[in-house]
């Protein structure tokens, strides 16, 4: 996103206005308690970004007793996080939420983790060492210019700390009734700015088990930095699954089985500071995933990605940034009677280039960024994703921003290549009933034009306010379009009824809403945070279509608000209390809910941390699809050595 350049320019301009004067009055003890951030991560950078960006910090994750990425994402305004199973979530931004939510781009240390199979994210396998998260950046709104296809309604950027900041050992144990986590990390410094770490993490949550390990190596010389990292995991879930094979005219049987999950990845990143503001970054990753679901399908996928980005030395009022990338993904699918992909194995190559210019319209005050990405993919060929963003700084304490952007979501394998034949249990039906959905190769990309505006303001060191508004206009949204049922009597076996359906660009409409985030910190030890998010979706079938697609508008809460208090008390005790309200999701089985979390953290000794966290105070509630989320109390022990 252009915002990096823009915020950088402004951050440099305002860097002189830091609070360094105050630090001289702190005691040595207080100085040892200050969380340090690198200059680029300073508040200025966020404050000056012309987009709706929110950052979930490591400190907040720790204080709130968060143990998974989805739980962490609840700490940002505007993210729709709904737990819909023991270890499964529906997560979206700006609407369209369900377990196939497909308009988000999610990156872990720059590695894209949305699945090209369905353009959504398998949240159950997105695990990291929570203690090593540096921050999670949540961008509400499109980021296609910088990030490419799928960054339609938002980008989630999960960033772990460099190995140089995680030297030493760490043991973390936490448990509550169904969910136990054990993790071990050890980091070693080689000196001269080089360090490495290794970790292993295991959890079990009801029938779900997951073991993961990984490493990261960081090395820096004067101008360049290298990062090499990787992870490997295996997981499983026990359950009752539909049998593999069934003949039309019968209902399939069921038997116990287990979903098998696995994956491994390697990533290398090289950044070079060429001086005078010019820079270059090269990133390459390889990612393998495996998911075998009994009676449904088994998918094995390999992805290779190469991405280069650079910034040229600023010339006059112009700051030019460029990039190019290539991604090759290849899958291999075991088809079943229920779901079949044709072809069973497919490679897809995506190529992109992007360029953008940040123009200083008025020095230190008005900045305009214009740019576009041009992407070529195997599904819809060429796609443009342009944007224009304007940042207007009235002073160092207030800024307004405006943006117009276009983003696309390229169809996924699930929408172009699949044939699903789903038995539908209908009580008292005279014969078996099926829905058959067949993908369509001629489907076009979903298109978004977004209009956004925002305002940020701060008063002294104690108050900050961030407000943003958006209007999204969508076209060519992909929906399932059914046709008239057919009764089949001429086949061997008993007669059956089938509803043929296909996938089509059958929906259009708009979404509007906004977020409000207010922070009040009366003393350094106390912080009160209020978040509000509103969304209003207005979707309709395009002419010639009559589908249930527009119902997805009622999968999102019209209003969400949260109030959180973070307090550092005496005697090394910190307390967190959070409460949130989520409106009803009439189409997703949730009547809406209010719930609270409470966490107490105590450091009896320098390297020992004990915490007790109560989740879902207020009793059982349903967030999505009928799954009941229950109250629990978690005990946590973290020991650093």
């Amino acid at each position: 996103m252009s915002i990096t350049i823009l915020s950088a320019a402004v951050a440099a301009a305002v860097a002189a206005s830091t609070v360094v004067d105050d630090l001289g009055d702190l005691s040595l003890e207080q100085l040892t308690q200050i969380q340090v951030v690198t200059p680029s991560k300073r508040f200025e950078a966020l404050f000056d970004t012309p987009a709706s960006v929110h950052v979930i910090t490591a400190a907040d994750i720790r204080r709130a007793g968060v143990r998974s990425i989805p739980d962490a994402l609840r700490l940002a305004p505007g993210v729709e996080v709904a737990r819909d199973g023991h270890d499964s979530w529906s997560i979206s931004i700006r609407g369209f939420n369900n377990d196939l939510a497909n308009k988000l781009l999610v990156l872990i240390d720059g590695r894209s983790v949305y699945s090209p199979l369905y353009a959504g994210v398998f949240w159950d396998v997105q695990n990291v060492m929570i203690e090593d998260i540096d921050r999670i950046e949540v961008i509400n709104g499109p980021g296609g210019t910088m990030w490419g296809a799928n960054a339609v309604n938002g980008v989630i950027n999960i960033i772990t700390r460099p190995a140089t900041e995680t030297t030493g050992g760490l043991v973390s144990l936490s448990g509550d009734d169904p969910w136990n986590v054990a993790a071990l990390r050890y980091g070693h410094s080689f000196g001269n700015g080089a360090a490495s770490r290794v970790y292993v993490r295991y959890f079990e949550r009801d029938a779900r088990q997951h073991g993961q390990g990984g490493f990261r190596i960081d090395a820096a010389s004067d101008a360049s930095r290298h990062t090499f990292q990787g992870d490997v995991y295996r997981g499983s879930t026990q359950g009752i699954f539909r049998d593999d094979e069934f003949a039309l005219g019968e209902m399939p049987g069921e038997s116990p089985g287990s979903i098998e999950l696995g994956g491994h990845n390697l990533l290398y990143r090289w950044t070079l500071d060429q001086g005078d503001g010019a820079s270059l970054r090269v990133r390459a990753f390889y990612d393998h995933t495996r998911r075998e679901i009994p009676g449904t399908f088994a998918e094995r996928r390999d992805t290779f990605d190469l991405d280069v980005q650079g910034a040229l030395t600023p010339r006059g009022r112009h700051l030019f940034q460029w990039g190019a990338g290539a991604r090759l993904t290849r899958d291999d699918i075991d088809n079943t009677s229920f779901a079949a992909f044709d072809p069973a194995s497919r490679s897809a190559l995506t190529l992109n280039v992007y360029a953008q210019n940040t123009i200083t319209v008025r020095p230190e005050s008005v900045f305009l960024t214009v740019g576009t990405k041009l992407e070529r993919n195997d599904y819809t060929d060429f796609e443009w994703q342009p944007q224009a963003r304007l940042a207007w700084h009235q002073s160092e304490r207030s800024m307004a921003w405006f943006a117009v952007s276009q983003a696309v979501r390229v169809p996924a394998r699930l929408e172009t290549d699949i044939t699903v034949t789903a038995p539908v249990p209908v009580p008292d039906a005279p014969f078996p009933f099926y829905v058959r959905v067949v993908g369509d190769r001629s489907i076009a990309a979903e298109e978004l034009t977004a209009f956004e505006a925002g305002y940020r303001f701060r008063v002294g060191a104690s108050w900050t306010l961030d407000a943003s508004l958006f209007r999204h206009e969508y076209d060519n949204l992909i929906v399932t379009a059914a046709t008239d049922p057919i009764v089949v009597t001429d086949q061997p076996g008993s007669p059956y009824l089938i509803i043929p359906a296909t996938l089509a660009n059958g929906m259009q409409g708009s979404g509007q809403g906004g977020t409000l985030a207010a922070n009040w910190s009366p003393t350094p030890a106390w912080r009160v945070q209020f978040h509000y998010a509103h969304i209003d979706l207005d979707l309709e079938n395009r002419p010639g279509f009559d589908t249930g697609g527009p119902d997805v508008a009622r999968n999102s809460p019209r209003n969400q608000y949260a109030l959180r208090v973070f307090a550092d008390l005496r005697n090394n005790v910190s307390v967190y209390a959070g409460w949130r309200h989520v409106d009803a999701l009439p189409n997703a089985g949730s009547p809406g809910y209010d719930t609270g979390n409470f966490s107490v953290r105590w450091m009896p000794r320098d390297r020992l941390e004990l915490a007790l966290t109560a989740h879902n105070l207020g009793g059982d509630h349903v967030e999505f699809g009928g799954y009941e989320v229950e109250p629990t109390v978690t005990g946590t022990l973290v020991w650093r050595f």
Partner: protein
Amino acid sequence: MPLLAAIVLMAAPGDAGGQPLTAGEDEVKAAFVYRFGSFVEWPPAAFPDDASPFEIAIAGSDEVAAHLKTLTEARTMNGRAVVVRRVERVEDVGRPHVLFVGRAARRAFASLVGSVAGSPVLVITEIENGVAQGSMIDLVVDAERVRFDVAPDAAAAQELKISSRVLAIARRVSKDG
């Protein structure tokens, strides 16, 4: 514009805690360098007269030097004016009260320390395992906090007495200095 490059290199949009308890690493280190002055006793001979300023020499970190200059503009050290100066060459070290050796000067560390050997100069570094190499106080980032290792014996060898308050909150106290 190194900051600009740094942010671009992050390849991620801006970020920040937005919390008052966060600060830049170099700011915190600068504050430490200043505050240590109150918890170390120099021999009387280190100050020729009552008007002698408290002198801090910084090598290898323009950032810490800049923050320290801002920080000490309106402050004194035990009633003395504070002078912060950058050191570009070993010959320019002179006889400060504090010598801070930043990462960029780590290759010149031995000669910098050698140039003040035998004088009451508090040597502060930001090098992992710095105390093993002759530093008296080594600032390190550990678990997102600036902590420090201290070698009181190395300081005592130069007639510097480090307060027990410093030792009490040190990450490691080196006994073999």
